[in-house]
């Protein structure tokens, strides 16, 4: 119970100190920001150790080395990363970085073509065969996608045909940005309400006995 009370007061102090940055930079904020940086880094030490390295590396090797002997390799690659700080053999760290980057970029390549380009183009292939509301909406959608795509042509100077289309594309972009901005406000206010609830209902009211 005592620990809970200390925790609430500590959290309240840190919350206020973090909000004080909105007024101006000050020693309380500076203390809080430094503490946050340190604690958060320490937090990820705990997380990486307990949730990445223990279950993926140490426990599998200790329990069943015959199946998982190959995990010595990522351990080795991980150690290669540290060679970076050695003065003359820093280039060894390139191996680990190169494998890491290239593997995920390969994953990304297929994901982009297979999972993004083709499905998004497929979304625009809609029948336009009637003069009614839904057809008009489909047409707006198609024009929107294609005009934005034309805006992204780089290797040709825009001409009398493409310039107005690209301009239309930027208008679609602006609608999108404005709407997405307005749409997000609500969720962000909810976050602020959450913090004020904590300060008012969990800290101030119990303290003043309301």
């Amino acid at each position: 119970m005592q620990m809970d009370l200390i925790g609430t007061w500590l959290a309240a102090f840190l919350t206020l100190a973090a909000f004080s940055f909105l007024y101006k930079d000050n020693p309380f904020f500076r203390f809080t920001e430094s503490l946050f940086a340190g604690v958060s880094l320490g937090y990820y030490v705990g997380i990486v150790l307990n949730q990445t390295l223990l279950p993926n590396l140490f426990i599998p090797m200790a329990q069943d080395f015959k199946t998982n002997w190959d995990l010595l390799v990522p351990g080795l690659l991980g150690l290669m990363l540290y060679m970076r700080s050695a003065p003359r053999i820093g280039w060894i760290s390139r191996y680990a970085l190169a494998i890491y980057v290239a593997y995920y970029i390969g994953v990304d390549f297929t994901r982009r073509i297979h999972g993004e380009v083709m499905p998004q183009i497929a979304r625009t292939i809609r029948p336009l065969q009637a003069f009614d509301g839904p057809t008009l909406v489909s047409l707006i959608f198609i024009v929107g996608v294609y005009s934005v795509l034309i805006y992204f042509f780089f290797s040709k100077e825009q001409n009398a045909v493409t310039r107005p289309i690209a301009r239309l594309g930027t208008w679609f972009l602006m609608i999108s940005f404005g709407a997405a901005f307005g749409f997000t406000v609500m969720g962000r206010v909810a976050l602020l309400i959450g913090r004020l609830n904590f300060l008012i209902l969990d800290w101030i009211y119990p303290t003043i006995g309301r």
Partner: protein
Amino acid sequence: MSASVRLTASSLVVLTLLLSTVPAGAVAPVTTPPPPPELPAPTAFVAVDRPGDGGNAILLTWTDPAPLPEGAMLEVRRSEPPADEFVELQTVKPGVQRYVDASAEDGKTYRYELRVRGAETPDSLGIAGAVGPALVSDPVSPHDNWFRPERTNSLVASVLFIIFILSSIAFARSGKPIFIRRIAGLNAVDEAIGRATELGKKVLYIPGIQSMDEIQTIASIAILGHVARATARYGTDLDVPNKDPLTFISAREAVHSAYLAEGRPDLFREDMVHYVTYDQFAFTAAVSAQMTREKPAAIFLVGYFFAESLILAETGQSTGAIQIAGQADPTQLPFFVATCDYTLIGEELYAASAYLSREPVLLGSMRGQDIAKLVLLTVGIVGIVAVSLGATWFLDLVQTQ
């Protein structure tokens, strides 16, 4: 054997049911139950390894017999050596005409049996649960395959795309000039660094908060290379705070080699590229605080950002810095557009390193991207015409699985 036993049992049930449900006045002088009419058998029953999978599955296909009695189902049974007994796997509704046995194991050989099973509730003739003659498949065993046929379209698209890019690079290497239109955000890069130099303040470059498994980060590191060359040339101070440790390593390599390439290793300091913390918001707090304390003249927010985008950009804006942002993913673009002087939108982020370096290889690959866009537009428009004319199969050419 077992089937005939069940048949007799069910006829008994039928008999009792008949006796109990038919109204007394209508009872005919029945002496023997009518012989059950023969149930039809399915045809063209084939069991094969399911094509295009990673093994452990058998595909069964057949043609339903017509007509099927009301409520009849198709019963799939399987036998595996050494026991030759058929065990029921599943009953399938008529009309499906296929079944995937995903419980098969690679390396084992199976035989399948398919037969019609009559309705469980008595039909008009009072027959329930009768089974028709069984078809037995040839022995079959599942295995893993060399190709996923349903992904042919995306394979073709990928190969075409690679051809466009590589042939355009070859075109550029042959010395032919390639035009690139003006991109305002990129013209501003030199302006921003120039202003920092004039004011004697630093340039702050944040390469997003993602790791090196994200292409936007790699694009950002490429742009950082150009920025670092410019700061090396002008002798301007550069600062690159990092959230991800691998990005940190890579950013430091890129900045270091930029200073070497400009012949100014003396100006490079290890702490130009430094690590902050792995937490998104702790990083945001630390970097925002740094912005207000040091008031850099130019701030680059290029890479993959999440909710912190607006906190960083709005704080940077309040310090009066020139801000250039860039992100390929659309989610945070609204906030960058609202707060930064220039924003690289979507593909412009990837265009940046070509635009800034004017290297033929990079310019060539941009031309390849444009060819791909042209092809996509054509496919899209042809597709719209096709589906409008009723050729809905066109959509299957593009849809991926």
